[in-house]
């Protein structure tokens, strides 16, 4: 997909502004206008959301044949359904007859979809099966039945996550995830039975552009110091030194990025103080049996080498991938919430930020757990997640309150011309013993990975990918 130079420089807004004018590579600035521009938003729906892989949910939400959920791919409604052979299909939720929404609820189980308007029916895989009053051939005689099915997205499952794309001949999901898959595997593909959702997702509305949330999860560790200061005050950041803002504990990490995706790898040693074994034991399994990966029981730890390479085990033991984003609009959190008194609570969430117009998005928040984890552990993970993340979370409520202010500012005649800055770059500095690929930034959480996010967005917007 080497977009030719002509196309590359060809994306221009009606007022003559080019994407390159909005995302200024020389000075690492982005015009605030990008959050509040209807033309840009409409282009994004085509160039980003109709072309990228998008995370729609997890297969454990629809375990049985006939189960379905309705979701959105950008501005388009889709049905995610499991067919009788167990496969998952993603169909545009738009009747091919007169455009009615075919599946009305958020979730359900059915043998087929029947459009309520005139009663056309479709199979779980979207195929058209018939129009009422067959004798009158109400689907006409111009198109074959095979041409009247619901539009199909391309679907690939990764660790049970349902990814879909309208770019039917585009890059595979593996290519799309690139070097990040190595890291994502250490979270999602490391156990015999894999992960599952703990229930349907929390859903709520934020009056902000989807990019404001997405770029934050592209590893803005810096904001935690100020915006989430209250959790430090409450003593919820673990060891005493992490409670002292002068130590900046937790803000030094290793950030990795590829293809616009990124992850913060947090040094697990900060949790090890009370452990009996040395932190620098060369065998990662020693450390992993002291502090199992987030959501693992000690009994599950021996499964790890079956699924992960030595490099991945080392990463998990010393610098576990913890928080990050999957381009364009998904985010993940897989952390131990340190509890004082030597206890840790694991929590694992996935978010998507679904655009609802240029100034609003739906925040969808799934809580996850290892399928094999005991019910008490799953329940504890959900409760910890609810306390900190999502609709009532003590952390994410601060984010959701902040983003609409940025959105409002992006509408101002002067403010929309102001830029947001990504000028504090560390530059790639991969530690010599770092086991993974991608661009690697060790040290204080700086702007590198977020700047890469904007570059990836630019590539999509200018047809460079």
């Amino acid at each position, binding site marked *: 997909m080497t977009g030719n130079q002509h196309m590359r420089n060809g994306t221009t807004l009606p007022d003559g502004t080019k994407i390159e004018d909005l995302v200024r590579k020389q000075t690492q600035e982005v015009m605030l206008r990008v959050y509040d521009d209807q033309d840009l938003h409409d282009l994004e729906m085509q160039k980003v959301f109709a072309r990228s892989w998008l995370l729609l949910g997890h297969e454990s939400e629809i375990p049985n044949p006939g189960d379905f959920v309705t979701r959105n791919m950008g501005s388009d409604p889709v049905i995610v359904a499991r067919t009788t052979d167990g496969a998952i299909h993603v169909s545009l939720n738009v009747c091919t007859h007169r455009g009615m929404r075919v599946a*009305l*609820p*958020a*979730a*359900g*189980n059915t043998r087929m979809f029947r459009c309520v308007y005139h009663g056309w029916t479709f199979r779980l895989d979207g195929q058209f099966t018939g129009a009422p009053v067959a004798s009158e051939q109400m689907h006409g005689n111009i198109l074959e039945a095979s041409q009247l099915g619901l539009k199909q997205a391309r679907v690939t499952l990764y660790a049970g996550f349902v990814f879909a794309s309208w770019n039917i001949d585009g890059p595979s999901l593996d290519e799309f995830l690139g070097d990040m898959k190595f890291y994502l595997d250490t979270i999602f593909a490391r156990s015999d039975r894999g992960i599952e959702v*703990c*229930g*349907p*997702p*929390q*859903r*709520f*509305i*934020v*009056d902000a552009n989807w990019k404001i949330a997405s770029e934050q999860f592209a590893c803005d560790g810096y904001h935690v110091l*100020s*915006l989430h*200061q*209250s*959790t430090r*005050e*409450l*003593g*919820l950041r673990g060891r005493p030194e992490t409670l002292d803002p002068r130590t900046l504990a937790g803000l030094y990490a290793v950030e990795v990025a590829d293809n616009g995706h990124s992850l913060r790898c947090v040094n697990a040693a900060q949790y090890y103080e009370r452990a009996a074994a040395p932190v620098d034991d060369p065998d990662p399994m020693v450390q992993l049996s002291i502090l199992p990966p987030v959501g693992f029981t000690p009994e599950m730890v021996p499964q790890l080498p079956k699924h992960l390479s030595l490099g991945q085990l080392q990463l998990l033991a010393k610098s576990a991938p913890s928080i990050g984003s999957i381009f364009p609009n998904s985010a993940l959190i897989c952390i131990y919430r340190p*509890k*004082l*008194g030597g*206890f840790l*609570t694991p929590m694992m969430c996935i978010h998507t930020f679904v655009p609802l117009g240029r100034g609003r998005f*739906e925040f969808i928040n799934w*809580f996850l757990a290892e399928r094999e984890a005991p*019910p*008490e552990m799953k*329940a*504890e993970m*959900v*409760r910890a997640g*609810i*306390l900190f993340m*999502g*609709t*009532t*979370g*003590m952390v*994410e*409520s*601060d984010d*959701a*309150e*902040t*983003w*609409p202010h940025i959105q409002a500012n992006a509408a101002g005649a002067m403010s929309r011309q102001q830029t947001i800055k990504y000028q504090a770059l560390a530059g790639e500095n991969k530690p010599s013993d770092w086991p993974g690929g991608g661009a690697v930034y060790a040290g204080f959480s700086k702007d590198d990975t977020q700047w890469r996010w904007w570059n990836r967005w630019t590539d999509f917007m200018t047809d460079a990918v």
Partner: protein
Amino acid sequence: MALVEPLDRLHDGCRVMAQEKTLRPEAPATPSLGDKIRYGSPLYNEIAEFYIDEALLLDDNRLLEWVATLTEDLVYTAPMRVTRMNEDPVSDIVRSVQHFDDNFTTISLRARRLTESRNVWAENPRARTRRFVSNVSAHHTAKQDELAVVSYVLLMRNKAESPNYTFVTARRNDVLRLVDGKLKLARRESIIDMSVLGVPHLVTFL
């Protein structure tokens, strides 16, 4: 300054939280209902007064005083709603994942964040709220000291310079317990009437 001393107590709170067995059945067992408490009876009036006083404490952000009206075995939840067709046998009320799933310790933690931290950016400046509680119906239960009470709440919320209100409505399924002659809240399940919450967060208690 004010945060230094209370933190120690919070640490203890965390220790308690860590040692607790947190598993709870899917749905809290519905208390078996006894006789209805008649509208306008002395006990009914006492219950109504509890809710009037509670709304005032919450709307005035006197959250630590409110916490004092909760029992230490509090269960405080808010299920989710998932839109399903009428004929779908699966309930649209979801308790596997909820909006709140809290106990006394975590509710206290939330209350302290909202009152003691200057850095609670979700609520600094805080929203102006008004809770309208109505449609109270109450029953005795099998436990002599516990009452099962259903109420409706309309929470109006205005934030910063916005000329608009956001609001949330819910049916609250409560258990009130008589402790030393005073009513305390032992259980609250707020069944919110929205599937997609129209607010950026719901840190406000219902």
